[in-house]
């Protein structure tokens, strides 16, 4: 087991390195001139040139990449001579838009996204797995058909529509909840819950639909295996067969999927955050895109992708812990 974990971690470090190179190139080599993006429309060529030199954008790309990575690990210094300013590690640069440190912006946005993802995750996993098992047990009956029809509509609806409709009907029309205004749960738990309940539900509907279908097909496949027949043949009660034998065996793909989806959401639930104006990572990224704020775009992409790569490895290791055969390959 231990050598396996070491191998996976080595691979993860390598993947993170490649990821940082690709992310850097996507946003620094693909634009025609990043320096042009540093100031707004009322820009003079002098300011652009000054910014180019100050931010090191006149240097060759490999050097820029090196400085960027150095900033993340040990911090970096911008400019030279008297007009220098330090950016301490982990430094992801300064926003082109308001000059704020990107690291600070991400630190503020991350908890919002984390709460959103966790709440939705708990909701969709309990509903998705629950109704998936229920539908599988009643395969072909009206309960199964109803659940399948609802899930099909659930994942065919445009993502933003569920949230918007809830916003319009629950908040604007019926005034059942105040307008969303995010606060930390430690400051004002009631307002936190009032803000988060609709985002949680709207995000969970989408995923619950998918997990219901996944659980159902997984259960149906396991239920037709020989060991289930054996369990029934030796006289186990049906409940025990489903819970102890079928569910345990069918669980692994669901765990993998859940791990990856949770990690994906931690990188920002763009649409839900946008609809409910939650100041999370997704919202930060969208605002940055609208302002061509390259350092912030690069940083949010890097953070989001890092979550997924780490989750990839965690899921692999979990898988190996559950099923020893995996380690051999």
């Amino acid at each position: 087991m231990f050598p396996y974990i070491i191998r996976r971690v080595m691979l993860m470090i390598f993947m993170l390195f490649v990821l940082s190179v690709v992310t850097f190139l996507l946003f620094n080599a693909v634009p025609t001139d990043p320096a042009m993006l540093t100031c707004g429309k009322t820009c003079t060529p002098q300011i652009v040139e000054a910014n180019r030199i100050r931010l090191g954008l006149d240097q060759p790309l490999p050097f820029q990449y090196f400085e960027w990575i150095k900033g993340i690990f040990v911090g970096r210094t911008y400019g030279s001579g008297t007009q220098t300013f330090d950016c301490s590690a982990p430094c992801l640069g300064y926003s082109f838009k308001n000059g704020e440190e990107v690291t600070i912006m991400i630190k503020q946005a991350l908890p919002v996204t984390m709460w959103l993802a966790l709440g939705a995750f708990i909701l969709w996993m309990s509903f998705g797995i629950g109704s998936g098992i229920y539908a599988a047990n009643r395969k072909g009956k009206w309960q199964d058909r109803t659940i399948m029809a609802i899930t099909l509509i659930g994942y065919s609806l445009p993502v933003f529509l569920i949230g918007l409709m809830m916003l319009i009907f629950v908040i604007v029309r019926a005034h059942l909840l105040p307008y969303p205004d995010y606060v930390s749960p430690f400051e004002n738990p009631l307002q936190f819950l009032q803000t988060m309940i609709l985002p949680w539900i709207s995000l969970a509907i989408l995923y619950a639909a998918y997990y219901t279908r996944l659980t159902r097909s997984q259960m149906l496949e396991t239920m037709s295996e020989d060991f289930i027949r054996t369990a029934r043949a030796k006289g186990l009660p049906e409940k025990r067969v489903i819970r102890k034998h079928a569910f345990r065996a069918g669980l692994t793909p669901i765990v993998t999927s859940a791990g990856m989806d949770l990690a994906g959401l931690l990188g920002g639930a763009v649409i839900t955050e946008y609809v409910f104006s939650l100041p999370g990572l997704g919202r930060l990224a969208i605002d940055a895109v609208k302002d061509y704020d390259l350092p912030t775009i690069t940083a949010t992409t890097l953070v989001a992708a890092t979550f997924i790569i780490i989750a990839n490895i965690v899921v692999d290791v979990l898988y190996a812990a559950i099923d020893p055969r995996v380690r051999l390959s």
Partner: protein
Amino acid sequence: MTAVHSVDDIPSAETVETAVVGRTLRQIAFNRIKHDKVAIACVIALVIIILLALFAPLICNLFNVDPYTFDSAAISDSGGLPVGSLGGVSMKHPLGVEPLTGRDILARLLYGTRVSLMIAFLATTIVVTTGVLIGIFAGYSRGWIDSILSRVMDLTLAFPFLLVVIAMSPVLEQRLASLGIPAGNASRIVTLVLLLSLFGWPYLARLIRGQVLSMREREFVEAATSIGSGTSRMVFKELLPNLWAPILVYATIAMPGFIGAEAALAFLGISVQPPTATWGAMLEESVGYFTVDPFYMFVPLTMLLVSVLSFNLLGDALRDALDPKADRT
């Protein structure tokens, strides 16, 4: 499960031919689809939508409407809302008019259908082609080529899809402009298709690679090798005929995925700009008028839902019809 080949996961033309006299998987699947009422309904709905898109100019001529003309007579002078019930439905404007401009919704819907379907179709075509090619190449080569390609797939999947597409779109558009494609809706559509494909291919490539890897161990590939088949014969005569079932199912499921992705991007303001319309762009505009003119939203939403649901249901039906494990009827 009646036939001998129930152990195989992959629909295989070869085994079917020997086991069931005179009926290939293609014939069996076609027969099953023909008797599946839901699938037939979906096919009919999709054909109608595609015909509507193809003959958009003709239909618009017939109703004497066009998507660009402003009609100030159809909207009220004070608020710019459509005059009359159901968002201004009248003989002149069969599906009402757009608030503020008075542009005809039927014409915009038909022309929008063209753009929406075109984006989804182009993205699906590119994704299926590259996914299949890379998947076969990785699975067939094995060894270090497979390792590298698999890592590239992991890395591409690590990028948060929506976020990167949003973040890359202004950057890529700028790059296209420098290559001589003028900024505008044409370049936006190209950008969208490129980005959707760029981050969409690994899903299919992974699937195909897995299939090819397991197929390589099978007797028919061994037999082909032993009679000295070259690579091209192996790929086109042996592997591809056994892959068309998963490819077909994947392509059917990919279409609604891309339609939904375009709608989500339109909602975030990253799709085509007026006067060009798509389902997503129309939905995004209509959301603002939902409380005063709900019919405006109803129109594009119906089209989007019908097509997405039809594709999804058809995909499910195809998967069932092409499943070699299912009972042969």
